[in-house]
């Protein structure tokens, strides 16, 4: 069955190519965001090192 072309909020009907490229951009943004989360997580762990165990409760 043929996929119905996506329609933007402005009523513009996207071509298959536009939909495909938009999807690839969205995936790229998701990967970059996931990479940023990983970077901040790793930086935090490396900078804290063993000091996290010295925290007083």
């Amino acid at each position, binding site marked *: 069955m043929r996929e119905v072309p996506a329609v*933007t909020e*402005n009523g*513009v009907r*996207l071509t298959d190519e536009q939909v495909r*490229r938009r999807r690839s*951009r969205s995936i*790229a943004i998701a990967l970059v965001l996931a990479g940023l989360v990983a970077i*901040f997580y*790793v*930086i935090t762990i490396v900078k804290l090192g063993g000091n996290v165990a010295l925290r007083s409760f």
Partner: protein
Amino acid sequence: MTSVDISRGFGPAPASEAISLAAPADYFALLKPRVMSLVVFTALTGMVLAPGGIHPVIGFVALLAIAVGAGASGALNMWYDADIDARMSRTRERPVPAGRVAAAEALSFGLVLSLGSTIVLGIATNWVAAGLLAFTIFFYAVIYTMWLKRRTPQNIVIGGAAGALPPVVGWAAVTGGIAIEPLVLFLIIFLWTPPHFWALALFRSDDYARAGVPMLPNVAGVAATKRQICIYSVLLAISGLLPTVMGFASIYYGIGAAVLGLGVILDARWVLRMRDDDPKMASARRLFGSSILYLFLIFALLLIDRSAQSVGLIG
């Protein structure tokens, strides 16, 4: 002077143009990946030569931030220079002049990455390195691209400082400061830039003339450019010896740098002997290629030399 219509990127676009056909590869191309690879390599050399150490993960993040910062300045350059890029055969297929990425998208992409890379470098290492990275981006995007490039044939001489700063940023990421050693690396890249880009300007002078960019061959003539290339090549070869002279590289590096420097001087001499109206400018093309190889090999030699010293292979 040519100016860029900044407003075109901000105004409402017709519905047919508002739907972007840009692929992730187009945004990656905005970062000038080939320049970015040289930046990563020279920054890595600055980090390796720096005294003390850096956690490998933090070092990797620092290199990534420096690379993205350099890429961001490339995106800002492509945003501002879209009008002249469209008139040059070498650059007309770049994402903005080719119409794959809107000017405003390139601008916001560059600004977001500039801010993000500076913050990440500051958090991961220190704010001296982050400040230097921000200054590098500012120097390339504003001082070189917006101010010098269209105004003076000394554009790439002064603007070359931006490309020369990455090893200083890398050194600062490890030490939190600046010393004479990274400034020597800065000097090598700074003196490398004019002969490299003037060689390109010699065989692309029609392109630059069409775009109205006052490169040296178009303003001072081919003969004067060839002389300047020779002078800077000799200075470059001498600066390549400084790491050994100043004691932070071994004599083996010095021998290698002397051989490479001699090669660059000989290539520059071929350029000097080339006829001014040579249609192919083969010697200039050769120098353009060999200068890239020179810079890569000089920094590779420095890396190998320091690695050999640290494992005790050489004193």
